[in-house]
């Protein structure tokens, strides 16, 4: 492995270095924000509320310090390597424990590697975080193409399937011959695709969003929890789908706002799902964050998008997924042949019942429901999340 990883031409060390001018420009733009009139309702039903966004902008311009985020990233071993024509940025933290299981974890939208940083310690260094040496993972956290410090593809075709193949290549390049994969949101779509491609060495996968059902897959069962999940999905499709459709069909159009206006970017990124929006609003307006979803962590992620100018390229991932779906023309993808683990977090967009997960992944090796944590599970509840990942992959060690 070391022979491959140390080939400097292929895998290069990476450090984040943002210039003072870029930060000054950001602060200038936040200060110069021209606000719209207040929404006409007392809740989020017209979108991100003015008071939430003004509280965020206020904190961003006065108390927030990007340099801390930069230091957090730079404290971790980061690399870039070109795969399929795109420079892929990734964090690679090896466990001190021998026989650690290699794990590639993929973030989603509107996330980035920032959402997974809190999980690095518990996953790689379990003995310092309530676990045992046998729970240890070597961790690879790539930035999706078009996200963060990864390159922006300039050709079409970077759908979850192509990203999945790139991840397999990345793990191969790092010399890992036996590994597992994990993801939520878009990361779950990539992880699901890896499971279907079943590259050599992939032992199993774990996900915290049931992307098959989100895309209209099977929803067996007549139980109360299945009905509740169906209702939640219907609500999301009926009332929470605007950003999804815009990004799937016209990412470039919204991209102009995301590149030119910090508050436009922040608002777009806050408006993902009701639960996370409320939690983030609480963090900024009332000062009561939910777990790791603190003001600083939220702004680390938004500032990363701003500084890397990746609002449009990140949104394009939805367009790519839509294109891939259209090209597949309803043809069913191959089944996932590797073992699958799944955790249903209480506040996810919908609580996937076991029957649904089994319907999509007959080779289900692990299923659990936990009582806290939402769409950004690793970010919000890193300890719960780490416990789930440990438990899910235990049988594959």
């Amino acid at each position: 492995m070391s022979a491959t990883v140390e080939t400097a031409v292929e895998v290069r060390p990476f450090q984040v270095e943002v210039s003072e001018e870029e930060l000054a420009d950001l602060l200038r733009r936040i200060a110069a924000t021209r606000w719209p009139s207040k929404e006409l309702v007392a809740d989020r039903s017209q979108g991100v509320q003015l008071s939430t966004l003004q509280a965020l902008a206020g904190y961003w311009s006065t108390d927030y310090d990007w340099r801390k985020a930069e230091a957090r990233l730079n404290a971790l071993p980061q690399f870039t390597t070109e795969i399929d024509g795109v420079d892929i940025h990734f964090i690679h933290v090896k466990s001190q424990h021998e026989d650690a299981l290699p794990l590639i974890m993929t973030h989603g939208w509107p996330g980035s590697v920032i959402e997974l940083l809190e999980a690095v310690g518990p996953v790689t260094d379990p003995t310092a975080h309530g676990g045992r040496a046998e729970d240890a993972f070597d961790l690879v956290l790539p930035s999706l193409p078009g996200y963060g410090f990864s390159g922006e593809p300039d050709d079409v075709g970077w759908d979850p399937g192509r990203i999945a193949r790139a991840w397999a290549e990345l793990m191969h390049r790092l010399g890992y011959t036996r590994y597992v994969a994990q993801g939520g949101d878009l990361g779950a779509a990539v992880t699901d695709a890896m499971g279907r491609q079943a590259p050599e060495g992939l032992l199993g996968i774990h996900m915290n969003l049931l992307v098959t059902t989100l895309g209209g897959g099977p929803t067996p069962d007549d139980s109360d929890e299945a009905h509740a999940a169906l209702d939640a999905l219907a609500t999301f499709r009926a009332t929470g789908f605007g950003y999804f459709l815009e990004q799937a069909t016209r990412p470039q159009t919204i991209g102009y706002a995301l590149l030119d206006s910090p508050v436009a970017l922040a608002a777009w990124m806050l408006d993902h799902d009701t639960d996370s929006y409320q939690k983030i609003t609480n963090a900024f307006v009332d000062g009561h964050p939910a777990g790791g979803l603190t003001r600083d962590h939220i702004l680390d992620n938004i500032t990363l998008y701003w500084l890397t100018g990746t609002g449009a390229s990140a949104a394009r991932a939805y367009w790519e997924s839509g294109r891939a779906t259209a090209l597949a023309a309803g043809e069913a993808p191959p089944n996932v042949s590797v073992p699958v683990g799944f955790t249903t977090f209480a506040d996810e967009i919908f609580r996937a019942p076991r029957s649904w997960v089994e319907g999509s992944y007959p080779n289900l090796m692990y299923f659990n429901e936990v009582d806290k944590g939402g769409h950004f599970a690793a970010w919000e509840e890193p300890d719960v999340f780490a416990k789930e990942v440990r438990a899910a992959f235990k049988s594959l060690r």
Partner: protein
Amino acid sequence: MVSTFETATEIRPFHVEIPEEALDDLRGRIAATRWPEKETVNDQTQGVQLATIQALVRYWSTHYDFRRFEARLNELPQFMTEIDGLDIHFIHVKSPHEDALPLIITHGWPGSVIEMLNVIGPLTDPTAHGGSAEDAFDVVIPSMPGYGFSERPATTGWDPIHIARAWIQLMKGLGYTRYVAQGGDWGAQITDVMGAEAPPGLLGIHSNMPGTVPPEVSKALATGGPAPTGLSDEESRAFEQLSFLYTKGIGYATEMNLRPQTLYGLADSPAALAAWMLDHDAQSYEDITAAFEGNAVGNLTRDEVLDNITMTWLTNTGISSGRLYWENTLGFFDVKGVSVPAAVSVFPRELYQAPRSWTEKAYPKLIYFNEVDQGNHFAAWQEPDLFTTELRAAFSSLRNGRSS
């Protein structure tokens, strides 16, 4: 009529006056635009193309006269009047001809009264524009609530039905006892609702985006289902056009329907606002792109397009105008139950070409139906002469002495 109209407390003259600082701020923001990378395709399938929006911004910052729209508006009699607690801005131009037919024209999104400026001359002064005195209209062109210089509602409830009722009040307040109404886009919805309310005095309506889609077809479109069987070729074509619209071309409308407030970029970034306003439908986008390449189609010129965008920027109405989608509960193309005489012009590059068969069912008193050979969604804006000819023909049977 005169007594009501001249009551100064109710109807106040209005002039646009943009402070220089607002223009300086706009110039500064345009110059500081931070661009994304180019889209990864060579067409508009990912949205407004970088080359198009950069050409627009270049023209905006170098050639466009920021006071152009202000001067154009101030050449016209403009007024403000409060209706249901909201200040409504409107242009009111009377014809020099007696017996001119009063006409209220309603714009849409992402439009404004700017769309209608070039039809005012031909409609009010036909003898100077190839028509005869009997073609004359008195025109009333209001800005919808939250658009342009009309006040932005601070409470919910200003949906198309509420606006239609406000327009009925406006015409009544102006003393008009016999009048007609016209609209496209939201203006068509509002005009249809007026035609369904059928207030005394409303003689008839004309639409260039009629609501004709039968319920079973509308249902199939909403659910993404297959076309109902038995559609004629024309109807099948309309179904395909609307089906494309609902799956690929409605992102902007869905976002404004669900989360208008989230679009903070419309208030904070001129380039974001311009891009959002260009991305209405494939045909008008193509025409506007051509305009910024120096090949305007009809009257949809660079300056016209920028008049509309600049006014929306300076009035900071990007989000308030989008809220109309949130307010709306009507199906865009559904039948609205119009009971008054109705006229329809079908423009070939409109979102869909309403089939005559559907139109006849949707408007039981169809007095006029015509398919013209040019013009997109912004019919009045792009083809003012053709649009005027249509309105003259559409309403001729409703004029004094020629209708029951």
